[in-house]
């Protein structure tokens, strides 16, 4: 098992290398002279030249790429053009809120979506099933920002149960931290809950048709035991896969959610960086997200082996 994980980590190296090459090329894929692009519309020719020299853009592409990779391997993601702060520091400051948002959303989603899917599959064709699936279609169809604004209006402005916007770090207490995350998590999780509820229902329906479920019934097992001990674990592999794929979805959604709820996270930083053409920051964030995604995939593969004894690597 350990050797498998090690092999997998080694196998991710080429993936990360390709991602890095792509991320680095971003600047060059964009049309025009990179230095002019970075400097912006109002820059004087001197400014452009200064940026070109400062970033080493006058050197050949491969050498630039090489030295960039070398610096990253040493933990140096570069310096923001706009704030002149190291990119790693800027990301570090913004990581907390985004990570909090994603973890809470993930937990919320699993806690809500999986039971909904199980119940829908168990009562397939009934009114409950249709209500749940109707809700799922609804969740799919609503954009994050619409849900976000409606939630903020109802629960924050009208009912005043929760704060409208902002973020409080966990260090200032669990409840203040959670308070600020509940609405954004629901908004962000909507699509995700719908997706996972549907997948859970579909996989559970398939599993419930299997012969071993009939055996479980023949043994006299109760409905709960059948659903959760015998069926859900067998349905877990596809569900876990979709949860993993969904993390990519979350990353995209976090950018919008953070804007709606004014959370000072990586999503906001990304938007700001794009608007300011702050290429070192953009590169750093994209690289980080790719890395997280590769890591999540590795975790999913490890979870497979824990769930299903037939899967061996």
């Amino acid at each position: 098992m350990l050797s498998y994980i090690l092999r997998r980590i080694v196998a991710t190296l080429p993936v990360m290398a390709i991602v890095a090459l792509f991320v680095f090329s971003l600047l060059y894929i964009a049309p025009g002279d990179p230095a002019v692009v970075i400097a912006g519309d109002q820059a004087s020719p001197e400014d452009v030249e200064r940026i070109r020299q400062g970033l080493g853009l006058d050197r050949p592409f491969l050498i630039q790429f090489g030295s960039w990779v070398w610096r990253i391997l040493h933990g140096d993601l570069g310096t923001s053009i706009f704030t002149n702060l190291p990119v790693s520091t800027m990301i570090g400051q913004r990581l907390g809120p985004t990570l909090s948002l994603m973890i809470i959303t993930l937990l919320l989603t699993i806690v809500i979506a999986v039971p909904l899917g199980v119940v829908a599959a168990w009562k397939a064709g009934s009114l409950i099933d249709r209500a749940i699936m109707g809700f799922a279609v609804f969740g799919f169809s609503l954009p994050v920002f619409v849900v976000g604004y409606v939630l903020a209006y109802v629960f924050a402005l009208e009912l005043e149960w929760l704060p409208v916007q902002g973020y409080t770090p966990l260090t200032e207490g669990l409840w203040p931290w959670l308070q600020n995350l509940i609405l954004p998590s629901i908004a962000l999780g909507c699509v995700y809950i719908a997706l996972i509820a549907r997948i859970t229902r579909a996989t559970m329906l398939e599993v419930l048709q299997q012969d071993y479920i009939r055996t479980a019934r023949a043994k006299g097992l109760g409905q709960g035991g059948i659903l959760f001990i015998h069926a859900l674990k067998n349905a877990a592999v596809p569900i876990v896969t979709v949860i993993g794929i969904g993390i990519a979805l979350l990353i995209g959604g976090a950018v919008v959610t953070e804007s709606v709820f004014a959370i000072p996270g990586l999503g906001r930083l990304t938007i700001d960086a794009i608007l300011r053409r702050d290429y070192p920051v953009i590169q750093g964030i994209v690289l980080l997200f790719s890395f997280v995604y590769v890591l999540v995939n590795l975790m999913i593969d490890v979870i497979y082996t824990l769930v299903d004894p037939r899967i061996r690597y």
Partner: protein
Amino acid sequence: MSQSLLSIEDLHVSFSTRRGMVEAVRGVTLAVEAGEMLGLVGESGSGKSVTGFATTRLLDTAGRVTAGKILFRGQDVTKLRGDDLRQLQGAAMSMIFQNPRAALNPIRAIGLQIADAILTHKRISKDAARAEALDLLRAVQIRDPEQRMNAYPHELSGGMCQRVMIAIAISCNPALLIADEPTTGLDVTTQKVVMDLLADIAAARGMATILITHDLGLAARYCRRIAVMEHGRIVEEASPKTLFGAPRHAYTKRLVAASPTATSRIEDLVTAEEWERHAAVVSNARPPAAHGTPPLLEVRKLAKRFDQGSAAVADFSMTMAGGESVGLVGESGSGKSTTSRMICRLIDPSEGDIVFEGQSIGHVASRDFHRSRFRKDIQMVFQDPNESLNPRFTAFDCIAHPLMRLAGLRAGKELWQRVEECAERVGLPLDLLPRFPHQLSGGQKARVGIARAIACRPRLLVLDEPTAALDVSVQAVVLQLLDRLRRENDIALLFVSHDLNVVRMLCDRTIVLRNGGIVEQGESRALFDNPKTDYTRKLVEAIPHFESGPAMATAL
């Protein structure tokens, strides 16, 4: 009159389908006494399994008991609800199923699966349940029970899985066990071991058993009383001896005739008028091959090794003449399917050579073989007609496809003619050609599979258990068809099967395989009548026969 353990009175079961309600069981009346083993025999769709499932209340949600009573110890099972029902299921009444590997949860250790059943019905600790599960594994004669407790179903053989199922079923000492095709899909030798075990356990624990099976021979060997079902009704109920000696009902007669025995010939399996047509062709038998012509197929020292582990097949040599039929028999894992696939050039041999009509084809990579001119000469009929036909291809497409790919025909009149000709040769009604596989019956699908295989007029047909998934009456017709094709078109048949009775009838010669090597070979009848090795003798003896009076006595 003393009360029976189970008495089913005028049971009707219906299923709601897209085409409306379908009545699967139409008035079954049946009684089972404590401790007896009753055989419930019939072909697929006869309602025998549905009767079993209705009794244990395991019918699909689409199925419903519409009339009648199922009295178990005087209590109507059909009216039980909730906890009352659960106290019955797995405790007083339990069930084992066909395809034991699928019937066990693939990701739960078998020890836990047995303990589940115990813990559901007894108020004991988990450790005590585990100890009981271990005892049960011993009772069903599983070797190294301590280690097997933590094994998963995929780590066990089919026979072992069925033993685990038996352990689960007997865990709470039920008064009635319903065994639904418990050994279908298992090897004959495994079948014998599992059935003997089941019979012994039932006798030792005084458990009544209903053996649901399509195999008359099996029921005859283990049951004192057999009920024959057709179209949801019981048509005849008698002792095995009367059933086989003097069947009264027309359906029983047909079923008895279609079941191959040690002495039956292909012509015995079907009715006289069908045989007339057949016999006309037999008369123009082919002349013996001229001396010195090379054999159709020559296999030299074939071996196959998969990535790890020992050889699946080693040192396999054989020859076949045109129009000859050779049987390849052995238990699962003996390498018979691997060998047949190598000869078909679907997988590559690791060593050795295959010579077809004097040309070496063993070294053509299997993935390039479709371009070889011999592809159309060697064709295969696969085991399960349900799985081996593309569900999105009509019967016409299935048959036309090889003609277009291998014979170079274009869509048009000629293709139509050829497809219709193939369909006629296999006895497939032409109006079925536009249908998709799910709209055809099992026998019709088997015919499509054979029509596809003979479409390009092959010289060698490799058949991998072509009738294993079929009812005996359909099997009889398919076997007759294959025999006719061989005689009419001089097609050589390599017939892979675990059903020795069928091989004995259909094949001139038989090769017995074990662990990838040839154990024995020779002329079929001589080989089966006088096996020279213990292994072949064991295989032959494991076949359940109607005539086996002594075997019946020992089993009871």
